């Protein structure tokens, strides 16, 4: 396709190797441009956008009770059957989950549970580091879900981070006010 447009009379450019020089100019431009790599996990970490569908979390109300009413709609709509809910009646007479397990290894993070939830309880949050050495730890329980980080407030940025040496598999962001507004996308060099 590229050949058809080239005229034979363009020989001056070919003799002076114009296209090779254009290529060299381009790579030289890239050579002096900023790098776009994330220094993950022990130096920088990507904070995802608010709409990111990561590790689930369950919202609580003002009294610290979970919003979930154990209607099991999430477990029914789940396309990969990874949510287990067992309801019970607490001392106030409310229907609450006794067991709320999510198998993260089976979950495909589609977000249907979030859509189906009538009580604004289960959500998909910003956490995306779920790697582990044991499959058993991939089944998370109610207390893990309550503690899990929520949606990213102002996501889509790179934050300074350190590797969590105790957990080993997680990168923890450090908050430094001056890095808050770092626009990572502005680093990408694009040809006009």
């Amino acid at each position, binding site marked *: 396709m590229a050949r058809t447009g080239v005229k034979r009379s363009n020989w001056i450019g070919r003799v002076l190797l114009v296209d090779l020089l254009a290529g*060299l100019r*381009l790579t030289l431009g890239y050579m002096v441009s900023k790098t776009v790599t994330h220094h993950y996990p022990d130096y920088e970490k990507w904070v995802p956008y608010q709409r990111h569908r990561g590790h689930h979390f369950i919202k609580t109300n003002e009294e610290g009770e979970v919003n979930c009413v154990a209607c099991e709609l999430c477990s029914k709509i789940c396309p990969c059957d990874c949510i287990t809910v067992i309801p019970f009646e607490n001392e106030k007479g409310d229907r609450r989950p006794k067991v709320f397990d999510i198998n993260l290894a089976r979950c495909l993070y589609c977000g249907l549970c979030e859509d189906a939830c009538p009580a604004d309880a289960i959500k998909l949050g910003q956490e995306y580091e779920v790697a582990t050495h044991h499959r058993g730890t991939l089944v998370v329980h109610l207390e893990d879900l309550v503690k899990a980080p929520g949606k990213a407030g102002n996501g889509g940025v790179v934050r300074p981070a350190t590797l969590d040496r105790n957990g080993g598999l997680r990168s923890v962001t450090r908050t430094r006010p001056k890095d808050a507004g770092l626009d990572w996308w502005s680093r990408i060099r694009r040809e006009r």
Partner: protein
Amino acid sequence: MENVLSLVPVLIKMAIVVGVLLLLPLPLTWLERKIAAHIQQRPGPMRVGWHGLLQPLADAIKLLTKEDHIPAEADRMLFSIAPVVALVPPFLVFVAIPIGDPIQMFGTEIALSISDLNVGLLFILAVSGIGVFGTILAGWASNSKYAVLGSLRSIAQMISYEIPMGFSVIGVVMLAGSMQLSQIVSSQQGLWNVVVQPIGFFVFFVSGLAEAQRIPFDLPEAEGDLGAGYHTEYSGIRFSLFMLAEYLVVVVLAFLNVLLFFGGWLGGPAFLPATIWLLLKVGFFIWVFMWLRFTFPRYRYDQLMAIGWKLLLPLSLLNILVSGFVML
């Protein structure tokens, strides 16, 4: 006694040259990886040492501790001497390369080269031609189809490009009236040869790239179609000898480009020692070679041959003709 004493500076110079050349590939691999990375908008090695400066050292330790494997069907003797054969010529070439005018030290005059041969250029071209034997032997001894194909290509490439390379320096030799490298440099006192001999420089540069088997002419080790070409079967320390040779050939080429066409150590600013100025130029050329490597794709085999025989050879002959006429 007098003779023995006169040997001392030569031995010291040899020790320095060998030491520097053995260590030089370490920073060069780092540089090459950095340039590759930055062209692709990534930072390259960052973790070992400041900006990954110690990464080549870590790689060297890894290479030296790896299993030194010889394939069962290989010719064991040739297989083991091939890397050495590839490595020796780049070292030998540095015998004839001067890095500055003679200096005064300890009351005697010390030449800044091991031996400034009066046929230095011829010696360099001849010795660097031997380097291809390493490639040929490696390919043949490996008894592997990829390695043989790689060395076949390299033979054809070497034959095709030695000729224009030799012809392209004839113009320089005609201008200087000598094949001694220090004379060639001092003949460029007023005007660098690249201004007088642009075609000669172009031909020398391109055929030099092909001689060093670097992209866009790295067909002998085209990783896309030949595995790794002639060193497919090599591992560990033998492989690192090949890499060493490859980087030293690049250094030799950069030196030759500077000495023959860019005035050697001449023409620098007054505050810089001439040798530093020369090394800066050489560094620039090394950088250019690496820049080219990560810009261009590899030429096809027939294109390689066409460039060598149909473009560079006539150009170099024309260059000799024209410079002959002008000199008359």
